[in-house]
């Protein structure tokens, strides 16, 4: 206790007691204004928090509405694009495969006619073997019945031989015609195969179109749901956006790692070109130059993908005339090729510099400088990597587009959740402050319970006296 507050020096207990009594008296005297102050303050704070909560809730509702609009609009746009692509594919298929259908039909008709003609030519027309056989049999019986008459026998013998000759001749001609028939039938085989193959191709094309039309049906159904602004469509699109966000985020992370490797490949040799001592802020200029090259490669990749209409990040490129778009595509590809070649040579230079550094380090350490046996393998590997990585980075455009589109939805949802949390926090804090006010008032009264008790007793006695005074005399 400070000396200034010691009422009785040397007796702190008594001093504290006196101070406590004084404090209780002052607090009792100021009880009603103190209660009002506490209640007023807590009410103001709780009210402010409640207002803030309502305001945040309004903002959250507006954001939710906007998120829903954005989600449905992007879903509608995506579905339109998919339907458009499917129709484009069907159109290509029809133009490519079924556009030649009249020619195909004529070819099929010719093949069928040719088969039919061959089939007719291959019709079997055998001689009448039973008549021949019976005639030959009869001559043999006549020879037996002639009973040795040589003249009759000779005549019949001659007849028999004539029949046999005619039979052999007929059989020969029949075999010949059978051979011709077989040849014709074997000649038909390639026609059959060709026809079967043509029909299979037509079947495949038609089935493909049927599958695509089924897909279009599903997309149309989805489009219909989105147009109706239904909750089902919203749920479906929201889940899809989250999945896209995660997948594209993962692929972009891999791409960033690829970019880092690319950076490591060219940062050291760039110092040979732009110097190793100059700095731009906290980065070496050589590092900045390497980063710029990688960024330019990614940009060229983006332009290439846009020109090919694989992505649609820049509507200006997508809406260009086909000729200009093709020029842009070739320009991007050529620049990318040149940059990839530069990177490949830089990667080779990196290998040379690393070998030079290793030789110097060995020399400084007093070790004989040694050339590794398979030194060319990492050199070739680095050059290949330096050439391939720029093209691999080109494909970053695809996940980047998905990421940007899904980020709008996921970011909006995250912000909405944060606002909802803030609303809850405001309401909770308002309620706590309100109850804290009541608690503080009770605590205040606890501190001055003694005078309050006295007051209560005094008031009680006064009240009973008043009541007794009012009771009429019996």
């Amino acid at each position, binding site marked *: 206790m400070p000396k200034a507050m010691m009422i009785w020096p040397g007796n702190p207990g008594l001093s504290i007691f006196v101070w406590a009594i004084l404090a209780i008296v002052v607090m009792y005297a100021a009880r009603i204004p103190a209660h009002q102050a506490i209640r007023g303050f807590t009410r103001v704070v709780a009210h402010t928090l409640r207002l803030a909560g309502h305001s945040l809730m309004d903002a959250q509702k507006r954001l939710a509405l906007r998120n829903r609009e954005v989600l449905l609009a992007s879903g509608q746009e995506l579905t339109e694009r998919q339907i458009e692509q499917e129709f484009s594919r069907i159109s290509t298929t029809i133009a490519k495969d079924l556009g030649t259908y009249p020619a195909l039909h004529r070819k099929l008709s010719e093949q069928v006619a040719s088969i039919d003609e061959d089939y007719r030519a291959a019709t079997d027309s055998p001689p009448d073997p039973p008549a021949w056989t019976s005639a030959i049999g009869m001559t043999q019986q006549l020879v037996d019945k002639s009973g040795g008459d040589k003249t009759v026998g000779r005549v019949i013998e001659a007849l028999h031989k004539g029949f046999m000759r005619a039979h052999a001749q007929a059989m020969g001609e029949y075999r010949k015609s059978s051979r011709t028939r077989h040849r014709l039938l074997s000649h038909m085989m390639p026609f059959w195969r060709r026809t079967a193959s043509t029909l299979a191709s037509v079947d495949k094309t038609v089935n493909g179109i049927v599958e695509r039309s089924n897909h279009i049906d599903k997309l149309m159904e989805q489009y219909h749901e989105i147009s109706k602004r239904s909750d089902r469509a919203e749920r479906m699109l929201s889940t899809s956006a989250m999945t896209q966000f995660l997948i594209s985020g993962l692929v972009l992370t891999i791409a960033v790692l690829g970019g880092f490797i690319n950076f490591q490949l060219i940062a*050291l040799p760039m110092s040979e070109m732009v110097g190793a001592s*100059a700095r731009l802020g906290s980065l070496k200029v050589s590092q900045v130059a390497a980063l710029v090259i990688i960024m330019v490669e990614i940009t060229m990749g983006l332009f290439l993908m846009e020109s090919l209409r694989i992505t649609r990040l820049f509507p200006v490129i997508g809406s260009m005339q086909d000729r200009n778009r093709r020029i842009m595509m070739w320009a991007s590809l050529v620049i990318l090729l040149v940059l990839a070649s530069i990177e490949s040579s830089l990667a080779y230079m990196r290998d040379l510099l690393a070998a030079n550094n290793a030789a110097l380090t060995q020399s400084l350490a007093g070790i004989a400088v040694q050339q590794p046996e398979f030194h060319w393998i990492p050199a070739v590997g680095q050059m290949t990597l330096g050439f391939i990585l720029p093209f691999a980075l080109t494909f970053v455009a695809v996940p980047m587009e998905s990421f940007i589109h899904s980020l709008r939805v996921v970011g909006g949802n995250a912000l909405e959740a944060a606002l909802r949390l803030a609303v809850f926090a405001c309401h909770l804090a308002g309620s706590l402050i309100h109850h804290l006010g009541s608690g503080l008032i009770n605590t205040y009264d606890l501190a001055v319970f003694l005078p309050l008790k006295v007051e209560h007793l005094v008031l009680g006695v006064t009240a009973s006296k008043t009541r007794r005074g009012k009771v009429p005399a019996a």
Partner: protein
Amino acid sequence: MNIRQHITALVAAAMLLGCTSSAPGRGVYMLLDTSGTYTEHLNKAQSVVNYLLGNLTSGDSFAVARIDSGSFSEKDILMRATFDARPSVANDQKRSFKKTIDTFAGSARGASHTDITGGLLQAVEWLNEVGPGQKTVLIFSDMDEDLQKGQIRDFPLDLRGFHVVALNVTKLNKDNVDPRIYLDRLEHWKKRVEEGGGTWQVINDLERLDAIIQDT
């Protein structure tokens, strides 16, 4: 693109170029004591030089000078170089540096006196001339100054911004008799450097050389 856009682009490019700066780099000046029997320790000094050559990079400056009877002279600088911005050229400079120091270590003869202060003044002069961002003077010596008659060296030194490191401060015979002589000697140099505005460090364990140079 109109004229205004051209001007804006030029101003932006100029601002970007203005942000680029050549790093001031690090400057190291190493003094080698060649007096008396200390020349026997020159092989250790070679290791220190090699270590420094391995760690200094493009844009850094490095010089090696000997301490002899009168060290305040350019003639005592054995080799000096500011490493080129291109790493391959810097490596060639380092090879040449190493060759010069190796040749010197093989043919060094002991000096009759030890003018450490003169060498320190020469180091300060060279480093101030080169103007690196970080100035370090390494003194590879027993720190026992033995001046010629008539040489005046007892004046204050201006060592503001300098870090002075005494390396391999060997104990002399007289130090063994009375170690206070050794301690007083080191204290004397510490006081002199710190009064001049510099910082002082002693490294006798050459395995801890990484403490000498910090990355800029």
